[in-house]
């Protein structure tokens, strides 16, 4: 009977997703949601129905962190384990909850009721510690909630009936500038392009100097124009809402409160490049935003702002589909994101060709960040001069910074580009600061001597992440957290990143426990330099930044933990004998090596 139910359910999903192989990931996410795993029968059935090899489906399940072949608990709880969540006590809450539930962290309880484990940053750095329960975000988790949570789980109370206040995600806007201050009436940007024409609009975009807000800073008009000119049966607009860089949470706000403007920007882009199809690629951790976004798309369809003949213009057809991610940071890289949209493993593509000429299903595709689309819509209406009234020559406009860590007022701050680190620290009430990690795990660790530096593409570029560490923190804990993050998030495609991320983490751990020597430092430099040079994509090229950067800017962090010997083995010989001691039941002095066997 159970098998009939599974195939029936999958038939329903297949129908809903048009029996398209490129929607395979979307179907698998729904199977995981309803069955708490992807059973072998489902893999087999989907492969047959979609006419794709069984190993392709298996390989897809094996790639994404939120898909599992082994059943997860009916309550699947994943604590956000970013360094900022740790600083707010997340690990303590996770351990206490797991203990009360009688389940080891990272496992599923034998009765199948509950799993408790960790995931990386869930985008709640200003209101952590955070966790996901069955994919839905819980914020500000405190130890006093544990008792009630255990009762709800043991009592099998559906998550939908849990206290609603546990699921509140606050906007937390601490500073507004032109982007968040200025109103944008529905359809105003679309009307503008229909009125002045595509060429004039593109000129306006050019003049505005708008650059990608995800952090890389590629000129927006430099993407839109070649995509418009590329040959293809259709064109595609993709909104990159895979906000995975640790410590970044601005898109969460824009998709919750300003979704109308983001979609307006996408529609404007569609008008410019001539696209009929659009996607919002929403990171799996933001599942709680899905309903609201779908409602917004529906509202716009009903208002003639999306769908057929937009604004009554015959032939201007454009609609948007939302695709969920499933726990893979690499899918924030635009070509990996496109692979994921096509229902594949998120491996970055070989470029050229670039997405603007050959993207989703080979069609010319523009991929822009959430904030970029919103800014584009605003520029469409307010004009380039308005936008250039803020920022620097090379970095026009404003930037949403997401501030977390040690400060009095964490949250979302809109600043003109060019603002100094010092100014930001003053505004958010940070004192006694040891370092600021700008641009997330792949970014730069800025020491106090450099707090005069500016947030700008020409100096400190960031997608928004701004994590503050005071003098009381051990910065190596942050470094270790990011090194572990990259081990988890490397896609595994190329040798330098797949192996290098693990080698770096192992050596760093040796430093943390006080076993490393100068030689280990030199090896990390060599490996890190190779990763920067030879990795296939930006993830691998920047994964060593945190270690190499802190070795450079905070040498004492490392120096004070190094051993003075020229060589230390990678393992502790005496500790390695523990298993043998347990098997033989010995623990006498003769069963130990003096000095750890070194």
């Amino acid at each position, binding site marked *: 009977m159970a098998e009939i139910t599974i195939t029936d359910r999958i038939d329903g999903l297949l129908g809903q997703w048009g029996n398209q192989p490129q929607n395979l990931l979307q179907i698998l996410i729904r199977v995981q949601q309803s069955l708490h795993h992807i059973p072998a029968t489902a893999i087999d059935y989907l492969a047959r129905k979609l006419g794709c090899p069984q190993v392709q489906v298996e390989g897809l399940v094996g790639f994404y962190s939120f898909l599992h072949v082994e059943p997860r608990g009916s309550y699947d709880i994943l604590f956000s384990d970013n360094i900022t969540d740790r600083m707010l006590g997340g690990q303590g809450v996770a351990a206490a909850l797991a203990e009360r539930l009688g389940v080891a962290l990272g496992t599923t309880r034998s009765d199948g009721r509950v799993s408790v484990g960790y995931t990386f940053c869930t985008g709640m750095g200003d209101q952590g510690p955070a966790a996901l329960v069955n994919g839905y975000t819980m914020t500000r988790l405190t130890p006093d909630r544990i008792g009630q949570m255990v009762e709800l789980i043991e009592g099998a109370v559906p998550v939908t009936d849990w206290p609603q206040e546990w699921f509140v995600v606050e906007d937390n806007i601490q500073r507004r500038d032109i982007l968040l201050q200025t109103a944008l009436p529905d359809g105003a940007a679309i009307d503008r392009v229909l009125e002045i024409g595509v060429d004039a609009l593109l000129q306006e975009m050019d003049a505005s100097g708008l650059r990608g807000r995800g952090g890389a800073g590629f000129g927006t008009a430099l993407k839109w124009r070649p995509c418009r000119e590329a040959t293809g049966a259709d064109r595609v607009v993709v909104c990159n809402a895979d906000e995975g860089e640790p410590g970044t949470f601005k898109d969460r706000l824009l998709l919750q409160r300003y979704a109308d403007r983001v979609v307006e920007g996408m529609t404007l882009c569609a008008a410019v490049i001539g696209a009929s199809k659009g996607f919002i690629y929403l990171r799996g951790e933001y599942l709680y935003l899905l309903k609201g976004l779908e409602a917004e798309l529906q509202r716009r369809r009903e208002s003639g702002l999306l769908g057929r003949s937009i604004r009554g213009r015959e032939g201007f057809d454009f609609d948007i589909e939302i695709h969920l991610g499933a726990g893979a940071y690499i899918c924030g890289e635009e070509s990996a994101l496109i692979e994921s949209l096509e229902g594949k493993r998120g491996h970055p593509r070989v470029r050229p060709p670039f997405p603007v000429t050959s993207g989703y299903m080979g069609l010319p595709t523009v991929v822009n960040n959430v904030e970029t689309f919103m800014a584009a819509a605003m520029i469409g209406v307010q004009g380039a001069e308005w936008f250039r009234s803020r920022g620097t020559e090379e970095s026009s406009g404003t930037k949403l910074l997401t501030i977390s860590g040690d400060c009095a007022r964490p949250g979302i701050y809109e600043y003109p580009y060019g603002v100094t680190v010092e100014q930001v620290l003053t505004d958010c009430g940070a004192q006694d600061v040891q370092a600021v990690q700008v641009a997330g795990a792949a970014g730069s660790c800025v020491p106090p001597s450099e707090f005069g530096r500016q947030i700008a593409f020409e100096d400190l570029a960031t997608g928004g992440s701004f994590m503050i560490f005071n003098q009381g923190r051990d910065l190596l804990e942050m470094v270790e957290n990011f090194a572990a993050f990259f081990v988890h998030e490397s896609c595994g495609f190329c040798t330098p990143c797949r192996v290098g991320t693990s080698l770096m983490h192992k050596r760093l751990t040796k430093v943390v426990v006080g076993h490393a020597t100068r030689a280990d430092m030199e090896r990390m430099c060599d490996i890190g330099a190779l990763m920067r*040079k030879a990795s296939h994509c930006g993830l691998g090229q920047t994964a060593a930044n945190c270690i190499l950067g802190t070795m450079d800017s905070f040498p004492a962090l490392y120096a004070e933990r190094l051993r003075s010997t020229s060589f230390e083995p990678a393992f502790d010989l005496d500790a390695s004998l523990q298993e043998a001691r347990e098997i033989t039941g010995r623990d006498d002095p003769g069963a130990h090596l003096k000095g750890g066997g070194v």
Partner: protein
Amino acid sequence: MSGQFIIDHKPVPFEPGQTIMDAAMAAGIYIPHLCHNPEFHPHASCKLCTVKINGRPASACTTQAAEGAVVESETDELMDDRRILLKMLFVEGNHVCPACEKSGRCQLQAVAYYCNMLAPEFTHFYPQRDVDASHPDMVIDFNRCILCNLCVRASRDVDGKDVFAISGRGIGSHLIISSPSGRLGDSAFDAEDKAAQVCPVGAIMLKHQGYDVPIGQRLYDQEPVSVVGDVAKYVVKKHDQ
């Protein structure tokens, strides 16, 4: 409209559409590689063929040759990089050259010799991996797989069978087999398949034969990989024996 570019001061002619690797191979210039085989679409994952093109690092197997380009390949810096990449591949899996039947015909070993990589040096991962001997004619030793993707491409693009794929992620990436049990013996794999003939290392090997040629007298024992080229060119098929 053919053109010319430079690799390590030597002029190399190329035809439109050729990659740096294609043109170098045609000109008899060796660029170290493991995941590349000219019969298949380039993959660019092993990164051993990383060269500098007009000063910028790129994979030779996927970068189009361009008129006048200045390519560096065998510089001290790039050979240092290759030694690190090779050490990474050695410590990631379980490679025991003296006990391996592929020794002397293994491209990983041959490229390591060519690049003067004398010891793995990095901490070994010692992963727990299986050997699958369920197939009557072939054996897979996952300990030696370097994720070059050649069997995946051969099975998909030539055999039309899709017997292989990569699953997992990051350091957990691994080869999987399409069959109800996940074992090779229950798959559509055949010793005559192209996928049985492209493995550059000792991961996919013929059964019922071993040490037919003494180690010391084998392909790469005679000549370096830079002279004799990829091992896949010399694979002995079952029916040839």
